């Protein structure tokens, strides 16, 4: 083994140099994922569109077994959900979100991110769950103050038909 001492020493030095090189490259140089003066606004929600339903006729009800006599019959497929987002009056998103699932019976979903310079923004959100209905099911206006490096999330509370900001924003 004594004959291998030079190889042990030189080999160790080479390996150590490679390890230290790897250690440096395992954290440097840093990557700027987001400019220093920018923040992140993310809109994401999952909510169900309306279903087309109609009342059963008395003849239809009579033809059904007693335990299946429900007054209404609905299509399995749900309607798409329509959502709009404006920033300072400028449209940034206007999307029709199809229902999920192979049969279109699931909720509509969205996830969008907006990298924005830090500052205050007038955010307007509108959502429609039934294409045949007039107006929107939910409308919100809020002033979002985005700090550098901050992430503001916007979700939709379907039960209360309102948009929710995290953290809460002025005018929400």
């Amino acid at each position, binding site marked *: 083994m004594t004959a*291998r001492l030079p*190889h*042990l020493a*030189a*080999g*160790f*030095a*080479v*390996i*150590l140099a*490679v*390890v*230290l090189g*790897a*250690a*440096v*490259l*395992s*954290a*440097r*140089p*840093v*990557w*700027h*994922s*987001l*400019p*220093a003066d*920018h*923040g*992140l606004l*993310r809109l*994401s929600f*999952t909510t169900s569109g309306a279903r087309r339903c109609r009342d059963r006729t008395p003849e239809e009800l009579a033809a059904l077994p007693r335990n299946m006599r429900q007054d209404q019959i609905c299509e399995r497929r749900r309607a798409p959900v329509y959502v709009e987002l404006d920033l300072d009056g400028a449209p940034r998103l206007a999307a029709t979100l199809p229902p*999920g*699932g192979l049969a279109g019976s*699931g909720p509509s*979903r*969205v*996830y969008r*991110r907006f*990298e924005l310079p830090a500052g205050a923004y007038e955010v307007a959100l509108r959502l429609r769950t039934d294409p045949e209905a007039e107006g929107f099911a939910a409308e919100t206006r809020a002033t979002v103050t985005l700090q*550098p*490096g*901050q*992430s503001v*999330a916007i*979700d939709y509370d379907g039960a209360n038909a309102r948009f929710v900001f*995290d*953290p809460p924003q002025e005018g929400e």
Partner: protein
Amino acid sequence: MAGPRAALRRGFDRAERVLDRAFGPDWNPMSQLGALGWFLFWIVAVTGIYLFIFFDTGVQAAYGSVEWLSTDHWWHAGVARSLHRYASDLLVLVMFTHLVREWAKDRYRGARWFSWVSGVPVIWFVYLSGITGYWLVWDQVAQWVALTTTELLDTLGIFGEPIARNFLSPATLSDRFFTLMVFLHIAIPLLLLLLMWIHVQRIALARTRPPRGLAAITLAGLVAGSLILPAPLNGPADLAAAPQEIAVDWFMLGLYPVIESVPAGVIWAGVVLFTVGLAGMPWLPARRDAAAEVFLDHCNGCERCVVDCPYSAITLVPRSDGAPFRWEVEVNPDRCVACGICMGACPSSSPFRRSGDLITGIDLPDQQLAELRAEVIAGAAALEGGPGTGRVLTLACRHGAGEGAAPGRVGVPCTAMVPPSMIDFIISRGLADGVAVAGCAERECHNRLGKRWTDARFARERDPFLRARVPRERVLTVWAGPTEAPRLGRETAAFADRLAALPPYERIRPLEEDERENGNGNAKQTRRTEAAQ
């Protein structure tokens, strides 16, 4: 071989010669890349198991436990974490160096396709293992990795709900998510281990352990590196904040800045093209080596070729021709790289044989034993000078310093293809005053085991032996890579000088006329495939 591949091959050889001096040829890490990959995997596995003892799953607990082990218990758990990380980084480095080196040496086509193709999923599973590991720390890098990964995956549209929603705000992330990640970080490396095992299935005596000396200095280097530059821990993840400056591990996460910079469709197309393109390389263009053939009239099923084959291409099967032997050998052409090591191992491969045609038990169609003998005789005739003047006949591997043509040089696919009796034949027939066997660089045989078997046969440690009557001072072995042609020339010239100074070799029995005839009469012999019909 020419073009960029040849340039790269020579570049590797030059760099490896430098490392030969530092490590010694047997410990050269470039010739142990596969084995080092396995060793690094086990370092990562053992340190991972150790870290798991201290790791807590949970949104807050994960980071807290990693911070605790990195600071309060830096001297054992912290070092283990650095080892875990740096060994993973080196694994990526070793893996890609291995890949490029095998391409440069053209060891990925033909029968070697299986090892190449089975290595492609290994690449992805190494990355998946690393990515899920980074996720667990739940620091700012983990948050960035989580967001970038899930946003990319969501573009596939295969998930019921956008998985990036899990990281929308502090309120949306649950502790159970970390339980899932721990499961993935254990399951994926286990699958990786399975893939690595599959990767080495078509080679005999696969090296999955580096030499102890190399393993020791690799581990020592990693420990020292971990103490000098401990793996940094970034600030805790905060979903109310957007990660800005990321301390990227460029080995494991080097693709993430690309993912952020180009559309998702380009990324997915790139993933598919890279995977399919890489896996398809063995057929771009394809290469078919003419597999070794078995001649039953000269095979008694002794098994030497089975044991010596580096690619597990030869197996013993029950005798099919009615000869009074239990076994015969069978070559699987899909695994044979035509290195000829089997021919060198066959006891029937004797160039001295004068009765009938020169046929051996297992032969290479592209360079049969009879052809080799004829080439040796022709090569000897091209040597200048008469007996006792230091004439050297060189049997040169085509992957080493002797790859080019030269007077008195006979090229072979591997030095172990040359039966030891051929050396005896050359000297005892007075074809040359000495024989130089020029193989690949000492650090690594192109055909894995050729150098090892040649050395063992010449040292009379492995059958077929180089006969004791062969004067060893008339045999020279030179292990030299493709960029060491000048050294081969110098050593051969010095050998010639030594031979010239020797007294005349007295046991020469000159070649007779019938021996000069090319004894290639394979058509008269019973090929194994014909016997089976």
